[in-house]
């Protein structure tokens, strides 16, 4: 995948999702939710070399999920919450799409249960 400008939301999401597809990268993001960290600090919990972690960080950076600080020595990594939110909204949209239907189903089932109660001896 090449670094380039993203013309549509979809392309952007493709890159984001490709970045999120890897468990190591998700673990890096999880670590960064607790605050910024240097590459060295990020390498510690993983059984991986620093170059391997740097490679994962580049993918995350390209997806806009992580940014790097200016401090020349440390270049701390931090989470970019906006891109991450766009990625979670992706599932959220589908969820909302169905949750409305299911709320109506609640009402239908509620009506059916009432009818059932009356038939099985509910008195009035």
């Amino acid at each position, binding site marked *: 995948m090449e670094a380039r400008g993203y013309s549509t939301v*979809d392309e952007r*999401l493709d890159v984001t*999702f490709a970045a999120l597809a890897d468990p190591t990268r998700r673990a890096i993001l999880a670590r960064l939710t607790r605050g910024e960290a240097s590459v060295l600090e990020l390498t510690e919990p993983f059984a991986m070399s620093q170059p391997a972690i740097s490679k994962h960080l580049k993918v995350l950076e390209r997806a806009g999920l992580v940014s790097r600080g200016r401090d020349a020595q440390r270049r701390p990594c931090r989470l970019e919450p906006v891109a991450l939110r766009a990625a979670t*909204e*992706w*599932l*959220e*949209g*589908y*969820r*909302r*799409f*169905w*949750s*409305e*239907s*299911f*709320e*109506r*189903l*609640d*009402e*239908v*089932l*509620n009506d*059916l*249960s009432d009818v*059932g109660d009356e038939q099985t001896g509910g008195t009035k």
Partner: protein
Amino acid sequence: MTETQALSVVARNEHEIVMTRVFAAPRHLVFAALTEPGLLRRWYGPHGHRLVVCEIDLRVGGDWRYVVRAPDGSEMVLRGTYTEITPPVRLVHTELNEDCWAADGVDATVTYELTERSEKTLLTTTSWYPSTETRDNVLRSGMERGVGQAYSKLEEALESVDREVSA
């Protein structure tokens, strides 16, 4: 009585979308609501969409066909074939959505599993797509619908941009 039950949606492995939701009713009623046209018409169809045609031939090898009408009057046909019917526990059918770009003209397999616990039913709906790309596109189309009107406005805007570019 109006407690809102949380709907969970996850993308599982490379092929599936799994939805889980608890309903405050015994599972034979939930099963009925999934298979009887008179009941389906009352709830199926998200975001202002209405189920205007609902034909069901509830037997293994039998076909189903829904027509869903959007608020703008456009219609979408969903259809498939029942492959497993075990009331009130399990229902499996194929699903083809020819009018949705995301579904890409391929059959998905939808499995409903109903588990009952103290008068409540856990409904697990698993949609299986032959490719990850199709699965992801379907999820993405959900996002677009979730955005609703904003999305159709975006589409109009893109069309006019398209005309300007190609003019």
